């Protein structure tokens, strides 16, 4: 059985959870500020889709605590390399992209940092931020991430790879092959499964006969851990632990239980298959709310601060949208560029 990883208990008086995890008040506030911005960006993107200005978007709403928690762990570690998947929108923004870069990526404009507008938003590589995600073919990046970890090991580097996928993606044969290989070679890699119980419309019980993807780790000779991915602190803690484990002992599989608040993508209509109140209930755990509550309880955030954060975020998003809209798409003459490297 996979272990269940928990954040430091809330009952503890002091130090607060974020301090226990080595985050200063400013740092946790900064992270929350990013989250607010990310939410504003995501909501705008969805609206832009409805206006015909963004052809397609997946949303990370509901996955943000897991993504930002694991990213924070990676950033604190300093030697991680990331292979995220298409739903890791919050993560990909939070690494340090400007809102305008984000908008350009979603609109397929020049300046898209991932693919220069050749691919769906946020697919390709953002090497300055140590991210590779070549495609959105589900789980195709998992063997590649494993190979990256192998290369890091062969080169005697400190690098730990974080490799993300959904529970749907865990059904792909390549995931089995990758984990099996990582087990044999004891690679420094953390497999992170963001389990939101749906692969588009297919519920978990039609995808697998088990409750936890993490339990599969044993089949490959390593450890599996289940964590509440709606809890930023638990996600941060579990990822930090996993990174250390991966570096010293080899692979580990971290399953983050999350909720998908939005339809699969802007193309989807989840009313066809999702019980009507499910999302509503899930939204009670919205990290945008729960982290705000936490910060307020601990006197780190006031209502006014929150308001101005939100306003600032909206302003940034407005600006980014306008300039990205004004930006040109790539010149048609570039269609043959970079087919081959020189």
């Amino acid at each position, binding site marked *: 059985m996979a272990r269940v990883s928990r954040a430091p208990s809330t009952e503890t008086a002091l130090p607060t959870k974020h301090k226990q995890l080595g985050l200063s008040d400013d740092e946790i506030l900064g992270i929350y500020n990013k989250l607010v911005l990310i939410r504003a960006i995501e909501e705008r993107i969805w609206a832009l889709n409805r206006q015909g200005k963004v052809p397609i978007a997946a949303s990370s709403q509901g996955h943000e605590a897991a993504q930002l928690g694991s990213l924070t762990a990676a950033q604190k570690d300093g030697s991680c390399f990331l292979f995220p998947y298409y739903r890791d929108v919050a993560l990909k923004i939070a690494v340090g992209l400007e809102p305008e870069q984000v908008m350009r990526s979603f609109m397929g404009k020049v300046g898209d940092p991932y*693919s220069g507008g*050749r691919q*769906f938003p946020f*697919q390709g590589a953002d090497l300055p931020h140590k991210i590779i995600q070549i495609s959105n073919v*589900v*789980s195709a990046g998992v063997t590649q991430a494993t190979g990256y970890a192998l290369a890091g090991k062969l080169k005697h580097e400190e690098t730990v790879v974080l490799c993300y996928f959904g529970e*749907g993606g865990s059904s792909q044969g390549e995931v089995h092959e990758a984990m099996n290989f990582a087990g044999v070679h004891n690679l420094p890699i953390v497999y992170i499964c963001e389990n939101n119980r749906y692969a588009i419309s297919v519920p978990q019980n039609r995808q697998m006969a088990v409750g936890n993807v993490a339990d599969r780790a044993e089949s490959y000779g390593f450890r599996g851990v289940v964590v509440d991915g709606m809890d930023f602190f638990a996600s941060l803690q579990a990822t930090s632990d996993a990174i250390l484990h991966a570096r010293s002992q080899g692979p580990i599989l971290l399953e983050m239980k999350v909720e998908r608040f939005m339809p699969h993508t802007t193309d989807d209509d989840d009313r066809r298959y999702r019980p009507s109140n499910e999302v509503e209930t899930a939204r009670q755990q919205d990290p945008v709310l729960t982290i705000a509550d936490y910060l307020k309880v601990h006197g780190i955030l006031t209502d006014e601060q929150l308001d101005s954060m939100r306003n600032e975020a909206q302003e940034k998003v407005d600006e980014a949208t306008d300039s990205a809209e004004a930006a040109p798409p790539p010149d*048609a003459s570039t269609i043959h560029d970079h*087919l081959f490297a020189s």
Partner: protein
Amino acid sequence: MAVKSVIEAVREGMFEEMCRDPDVFLLGEDVGPRGGVFLASQGFYEEFGRDRIIDTPLAEASIVGIALGAAYKGMRPIAEIQFSDFIWPAANQLIGEAGRVCYGTNGNLSVPLVVRVPYGGGIRGGLFHSQNVESYFFHTPGLKVVAPSTPFDAKGLLKSAIRDNNPVVFVEHKKTYRMVRGEVPDDDYVLPLGVADVKRAGSGVTVVSYGLMVHYCLEAAEALSGEGVDVEVVDLRTLKPLDVDTILDSVRKTGRVLIVHEDNITGGVGAEVAARIASGAFDYLDAPIGRLCGPDVPTMPFASSLEEAYMPSTESIASELRNLAAY
């Protein structure tokens, strides 16, 4: 006859065959309550239940492999690959296995299997939701490959494919799904696999195409008729078996031919068509064999400008036809 879209024709074709034959069943990702991401199976789950409309785990190799195994037992599975770009994990089952079952068992076993594959670009699908995959299966002995362009053809050919005792890769151009509408008979009909269709008769230049591009070719032909160039449009409909006779007949008549497809030019279906003409109608040719196809870059990029630059268009087809007519 009612006017229907291609996606409606596909849905009707499957629906009718499932009613007709209890051995037909559908499996794939999101084909159940969701009705398929393109709604090809909308309402099927409610009608046929979850034994015959199977939402699979996200694992294409197993979708095709399991379908294959069920076919061995006399079922007639329809496997849906959500987008053509996701067919590669299933290549081992489709290229490696399916096409060799009958041959490799000396006829002991046959494989009544249809793999439905929404494909093609022009819908802002970018590098991984646009691919033209047909030529890979075209090159694979033992597979049949069907690529309809109209609702009438889609339904009639799909029904034939389902009744066929061989593995058929049935590629459906996503852009035609809702864009192309046309009359579809209300009663049961089938169209034979392996027979091309002259969608427009003409005497000056032949254009050979399939799928979405047929419509652009027809538009181009229309445009050229005003200029005194009489274009014959041959819609291959079935890529394999390839109806070489219809192609050669047309070229022997016109002496000039343009082959149009969206797929990358090098090693595409058009290369084979050109080669057949170059050997089979050599003495009738009045001009070099023309090909207007997608360039050799990995599919349509996402940006509107690059996608447009990739796709053959009514204008570029017309211009090539003009050149050919003037040769």
